[in-house]
């Protein structure tokens, strides 16, 4: 169990700088999720933490120890790989005890730890099978078991759920979260799936182009995104953006001239100027005609728990999430507004959220 500190961390591949200058502290026993689109550097960062990639600048500490030049074998971290990376020629038992054996433990010492981890993960019946005789979910558990038996300082997960089907993914997601509470070990989890990030993390680190965009609890990142990128990446369907300008105490949409009261905004708006209005789909509400923004429904997607309405609004495509009791039809004209205090304003040039308090951005 240990904290992780990254100071001015730099990672390059040849002439390409993948991580230009990264600062982050992960607290002891914290469950951190690194999230971002493909190529944002999250997996590279995880591999740097694991010691599988060399650091080109800055400092990396696990606990109080500087590990820049410490090889993976001596970092006392465990990693669950995207493709599980089980040793195919070994049984589940051998897979799980291998790391302990490498640390000089005898079979008598490894056996009870393997048994305990196997029971915890419900893979006890498969201990003498080889990986190829297991299903995807079972292999995934063995990969976790292999990490657990070592009782490492840090667990690293590199998109471990991406090869599972949707149902199993949800199940294993919950299991990992439960496990993190039981084990009380620092965990770093990489995913491109914002649902995984939201549901599992103590804190989310949103990354783009090797740079941290925002660090915060799932609620903070969702409710108070620091910029357009975070706002659009976190949340599914993503936040709707509409170009607008401030006119007095109202917000006029750039195309169509329709207005909304500024009182609906989450933060204090500037006195004047161009802005980007951001409203999450679930923060739209349908109001009587004339009291909101006029929109024409293009497509209706009933999801059971709620309904997604795709509309054309002021020349933009927007998605609103409404109650399943509302049964709109394509072609219908509706009037939409934002729930008070839920709409955000972004600076169209810097793309940052207007009026955010200090410390929200990294």
């Amino acid at each position, binding site marked *: 169990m240990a904290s992780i500190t990254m100071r001015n961390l730099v990672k390059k591949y040849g002439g390409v700088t993948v991580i230009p200058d990264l600062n982050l502290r992960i607290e002891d026993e914290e469950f951190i999720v690194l999230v971002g689109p493909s190529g944002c550097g999250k997996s590279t960062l995880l591999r740097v933490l*694991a010691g599988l990639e060399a650091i080109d600048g800055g400092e990396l500490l696990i606990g109080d120890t500087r590990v820049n030049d410490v090889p993976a074998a001596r970092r006392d971290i*465990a990693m669950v790989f995207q493709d599980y990376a089980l040793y*195919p020629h070994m049984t589940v038992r051998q897979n799980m005890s291998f790391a302990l054996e490498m640390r000089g433990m005898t079979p008598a010492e490894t056996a009870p730890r393997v048994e305990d981890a196997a029971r915890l993960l419900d893979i006890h019946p498969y201990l003498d099978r080889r990986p190829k005789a297991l299903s995807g979910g079972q292999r995934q558990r063995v990969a976790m078991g292999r990490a657990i038996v070592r009782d490492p300082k840090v667990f690293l997960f590199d998109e471990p759920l991406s090869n599972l089907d949707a149902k199993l993914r949800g199940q294993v997601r919950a299991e990992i979260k439960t496990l993190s509470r039981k084990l009380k070990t620092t965990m770093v989890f990489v995913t491109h799936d914002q649902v995984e990030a939201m549901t599992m993390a103590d804190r989310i680190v949103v990354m783009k182009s090797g740079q941290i965009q925002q660090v915060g609890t799932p609620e903070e990142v969702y409710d108070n995104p620091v910029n357009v990128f975070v706002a659009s990446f976190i949340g599914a369907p993503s936040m709707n953006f509409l170009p607008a300008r401030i006119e007095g105490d109202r917000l006029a949409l750039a195309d169509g001239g329709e207005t909304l009261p500024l009182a609906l905004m989450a933060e204090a708006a500037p006195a004047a100027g161009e802005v980007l209005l951001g409203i999450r789909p679930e923060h739209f509400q349908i109001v009587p005609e004339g009291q909101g923004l006029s929109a024409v429904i293009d497509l209706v997607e009933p999801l059971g728990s709620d309904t997604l309405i795709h509309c054309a609004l002021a020349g933009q495509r927007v998605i609103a999430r409404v109650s399943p009791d509302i049964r709109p039809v394509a072609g219908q004209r509706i009037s939409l507004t934002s729930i008070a205090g839920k709409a955000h304003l972004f600076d169209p040039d810097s793309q940052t959220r207007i009026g955010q308090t200090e410390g929200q951005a990294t």
Partner: protein
Amino acid sequence: MTTRPSDSRWLDGLNLVLLVLAGVIVMTPTAWMVLSSFKPSYEVTAYPPTLVFQPTLENYATLNSQTPFLRYTMNSLIVTVGSTLFGLLLGAPAAFVASWTRITWPAVVTLMARMAPGTLFLLPWYVMFRQVDMIGSYTALILTHAVITLPVVIWVLLPYFDNIPRSIYEAAQVDGCSPFRIFRRIALPLVSSGLAVSAILAFVFSWNFFLFALVLSNSQTKTLIAASFNFIGEGSTNWGGLMAAATIIALPPLILAAVVQRWLISGLTLGAVKG
């Protein structure tokens, strides 16, 4: 019931004809050799050749009585097994490192050495071994044959190592393995079928290697294939004895070739990763 298009059946038929034709072309010299070894000496060179004859073991008896055949066989085994083991001992780690580091030029160099005509090395090789007084020694023969076995082992094993998912190596690193332990505990067991194939191919190539064995051996260390040359005399050639010797020399490679087929089916890495 499904019916196959006539085009497909026509192609199947053509394939069969071509396969039979290729088989006949490949097997005719071997069949000729084996049949001749069982013919009386006057029938071996008869023209037109006879296909129906009274088989005899006369050539094999001559072979056994007139030449130290057993010693030649032992010599061949010592040199072939020695050079195969030498090739495996150096070639397997070399292939692993080439795959791990993705630096393959040293492997290309060994291949070039293999591809170059043997006579190119013959003279310097002979002079070198004569200077250290090793002509006729098993060591000289084993080292020379390693020129054949080493590239075979490296180039057969390289794709096997390349096929091991990188993440398995990385998992072993995280689990606390040094590179040597990764090689010994993870990589080698996963390429066991490749090891078998490369060992068998190296054995066959070394067994059949004629030129260096002829020049670098002496009467005590002569290998089977070099010794078979003795049957070709200046005035007359004992074709029957030569065919019997050739048949016996060809047996181990033929048997091993049959064994290789079992090992070529490699399914060991199944289940290692997703899927």
